[in-house]
Every structure is written in C-alpha cells, then in structure tokens.
C-alpha cells in the first residue's frame, strides 16, 4: 500500500476542509472497498480522512417529512436489522441482506455503499488499460471478458456496472442523498446521484470536490410499497457474489389494480437502472403477467449484450416477471432460502 497521511476528522466541516485542502484525499469509514483498492494500487490517495468519529453521521431517525434519515456511517447490517426499516421499507432490508457477507455488512457503511467502485476485473488489474482508472487508456472489457458487465446505458469508453444491491433498492424507493460541501448542504435525488459512463467513466457519481455524504433520506410515500415488494438477485453462486442481474420490484395494489409501481435493475448498468415509462406502464393495470411483460419490455428497451453477457437480456426479462409476481403475491424472495418461488 502506498503511504498516505491520516487525518481523523472531528466534524463534517473539518472533513470538508481536509478534502478541499488535499484534492486527492479520500474519505475512509468502513474501509471494505477503499482499503482493498489501495492494496491493489487502484486507489493511491495521498491522504485519508477518517470520518468515523463524527457523531452527526450516525443514527437512523424519523424525519419531519415522515420518512427515515439514515446517517452515512450507519453500517449496512444495522440498516437491514432496524425495525423501522424492516416494517416500512422492507425492500431495502432485503436488498442489503442479498449482498456481501455478515463481516462486510458489519463494516460497510451506508455512504460507502453508495460510493463503492465497480468490480470490473480490468478496473482492478493495474497491468491492463481502463478508462475508469486511467482516462483515455482504453476499455479491454469491450471485446474482452465481460460476463459481469453492462447491457444498458454503457458507452464506447466503459461497460462497467455498479455493484451495489442496496443502491438498487434505494433507487426504487426514490431515496434522496443529503451532502455537505464547501458551498453548503444540498439534496440529490437518487436517480441523479450515480452517472452513466459516457465519455467520463472515471466519474462514478455527481458528488462535487470537497463534498461528503451526510445521510440517505427515505421518503414517506415509499412506505406504500411495504406490502408488495421483492428483491430478486441472480448470480453465479448463491451467496457472496455480485449480481448478474438483480431486480427491485415494488407495487402499491388497491382493489386489484396497480396504483403505483417501482422497478429498478442491478448488475446491468453503470447505475441502478430505472425508467419511469416502465413503471407508468404498470399503473392502472391488474397485477398480471401481461402488465409485467410490458414493463419488462420498456425497462429493457435498447439493451445490448457483449460477447459473454448477451444472456443477461433474457435473464433480466424473466427476472423482472418473477420479481413482480413475487411482489404482487406479497411473497418477497427470501435471502436465506435461495429457492426462487
């Protein structure tokens, strides 16, 4: 690991100041992704800003708007096991439990989960070019080994995927992110947080220099999906593997008709993949296979496979149907019993 300066921040303002003073500094909290990347030489910050002692970044609290505020430092496991999250936003708890391992979920934080980097093999391998790691050097995943890679929203510069399960649920629930920075606080819609690669794949998200995530906000209207949701994750082994395709499905069904729907995909794009047209296609319909198929077609419009992942297009279509069926039936996918009902 390359040597670095260590800065233990005692407040958000202090952390922001430290980030502004050292532009290549990185925030460290759970360490599960950043320390790993530093060992590989993919991340080589000259300074780390330890934010784990900042009390205001802790806690899960009810908001004035009637939702929940999850502090950036709250570990993934704490979110998944929180009674309010389980009762009001069970899709989020389920998605978190679909990812990583108990040890990693104990250490990994809410803010860190958002900011984790792709697990593209070429991004990790400093012996190969990678536009995300070294802008302009090329993308060997295009024409290379690309089983884990994107089928939607990719560019000629990068076909990496965002690896998070938690973020797929947060996208579906319409969360917001509260950040603090040199120009004061602001709130970012979840859909606007992560980026598509375009011609700047080195930028994963829209966080500006010196900004730090303070909290994730869950809106009260997303509680309407607590009765009909499912997080279905398909992968090469049943535990502790990144998604080939995952689906977060959430429905609000009244008198047999869908009055609101949310649908997001993981493992298929540079960000959780959501398209409002697909959700609109469900609204007003009975919760049946015809409606689900129409939504799947909308959500996967324009999907394009590569040498090793074209199968993901049909896999995603079927997973969408299955997850919506599970959600409609009120029988969400178990993250312990991996049989798909």
């Amino acid at each position, binding site marked *: 690991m390359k040597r670095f300066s260590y*800065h233990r921040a005692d407040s958000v303002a202090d952390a922001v100041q430290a980030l502004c003073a050292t532009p290549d500094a990185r925030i460290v909290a759970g360490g599960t992704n950043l320390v790993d990347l530093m060992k590989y030489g993919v991340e080589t910050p000259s300074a780390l800003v330890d934010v784990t002692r900042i009390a205001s970044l802790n806690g899960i609290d009810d908001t004035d708007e009637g939702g929940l505020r999850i502090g950036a430092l709250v570990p993934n496991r704490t979110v998944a096991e929180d009674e309010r999250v389980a009762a009001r936003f069970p899709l989020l708890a389920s998605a978190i439990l679909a990812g990583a*391992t108990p040890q990693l979920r104990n250490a990994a934080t809410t803010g860190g989960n958002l900011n984790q980097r792709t697990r593209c093999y070429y991004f990790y391998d400093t012996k190969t070019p990678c536009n995300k790691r070294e802008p302009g050097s090329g993308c060997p995943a295009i024409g290379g080994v690309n089983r884990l890679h994107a089928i939607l929203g990719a560019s000629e510069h990068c076909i990496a995927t965002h690896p998070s399960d938690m973020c797929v649920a947060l996208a579906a629930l319409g969360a917001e992110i509260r950040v603090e920075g040199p120009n004061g606080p602001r709130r970012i819609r979840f859909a606007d947080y992560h980026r598509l690669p375009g011609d700047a794949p080195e930028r994963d998200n829209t966080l500006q220099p010196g900004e730090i995530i303070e909290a994730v906000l869950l809106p009260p209207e997303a509680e309407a999906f607590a009765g009909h949701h499912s997080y279905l994750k398909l992968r090469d082994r049943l535990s502790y593997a990144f998604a080939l395709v995952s689906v977060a499905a959430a429905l609000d069904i009244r008198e047999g008709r869908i009055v609101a729907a949310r649908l997001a995909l993981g493992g298929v794009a540079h960000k959780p993949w959501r398209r409002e047209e697909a959700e609109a296609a469900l609204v007003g319909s009975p919760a049946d296979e015809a409606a689900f198929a129409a939504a799947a077609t909308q959500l996967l419009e324009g999907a394009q496979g590569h040498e090793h992942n074209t199968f993901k297009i049909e896999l995603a279509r079927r997973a969408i149907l299955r997850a919506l069926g599970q959600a409609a039936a009120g029988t969400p996918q178990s993250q312990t019993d991996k049989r798909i009902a």
Partner: protein
Amino acid sequence: MPAHAIVGTQTVPIEITLNGKRRSLEVSPVTTLLDLLRNHLDLTGTKKGCDHGQCGACTVLIDGQRINSCLQLAVMQDGKSITTIEGLAQDGRLHPLQAAFIEHDAFQCGYCTPGQICSAVALIEEGHTTSREEIREFMSGNLCRCGAYTNIVDAIEDVVGRRRQPVQEAAE
C-alpha cells in the same frame, strides 16, 4: 495534538483493549489490523488468507462485531475492544465453539478455523441460527477450501442447542 491534526506518514499512538488487556501502541497509518496482530503483536492465530476480504480467515471481533481484520486500518481502531481467537478460551477452558469444532471434526487443514470460530461466536450472538440454511447463509463470509462445511454447521448447531437447553429446563 488536536483530533483532526494531519499526522502524515509517521506513526500514530492508539489505545485498544486486546483480548481483555489495555494496550498502548504506535502504528503506521498503512498497517492493517491483521498485520498489526500477526506481525507486531505475535498473535498469529488470526490468519491471512486472501488479504482482500473475500475468505474470512482474518475474522476477529471488534466491539463484539465480526469484521475482516485485513480491511481495517489499525490506526482507526483507537478506543476499540478487539477479541481474537487467542482471547476466546477462559481460565484455561476452551470456548464451547472451539470444543465443538474439535468434537465434530469441523476442519481439515485448520487454516480457516480461527476465522470460522470467531465468525460463529458472533453469529450465535446475532441469532441467525434458526435453521441449517440460515447458519450456512450467515457463515458465507468464511470459506473452507477443505470443504468442512457440513461439520462446521454441525458444530455450530450443537453449541446453539446446548445454549437453548438450560433455558428449556428452567422453563420446565
């Protein structure tokens, strides 16, 4: 020194409670908790497998939580209480899980065993032990390349059952 001072690449003083004993240490910011334990404190029970958080051999308990020590920086552990495999036996008696692993032959080469046992100690505290499927899922962060999984689950189930028994007897 204020809490937020840039300390550069020099060593940083930390205080931790390690297996019940207070320790004052000087650590370099680049040193992981795993390397601190093994290379600086001669606590070699905690194993380095992949060194990337993928195998679980380095699992220790930090403030009672199971954590991959290979991905933790030692400098960030200031004030924490850390328990390693060396700290589980009490008064010369093996921890029930250590005894159960021996009884059930829950290992072959033994390299993953300290991590498996530390992980299982936390698993039982967490309570994710209602079925073999649940135990397997919640032990998925600990790989065993010898494939002793069946006996590892047996050992954990045995300890879970023994912990339940006294409660049942008391209820009767």
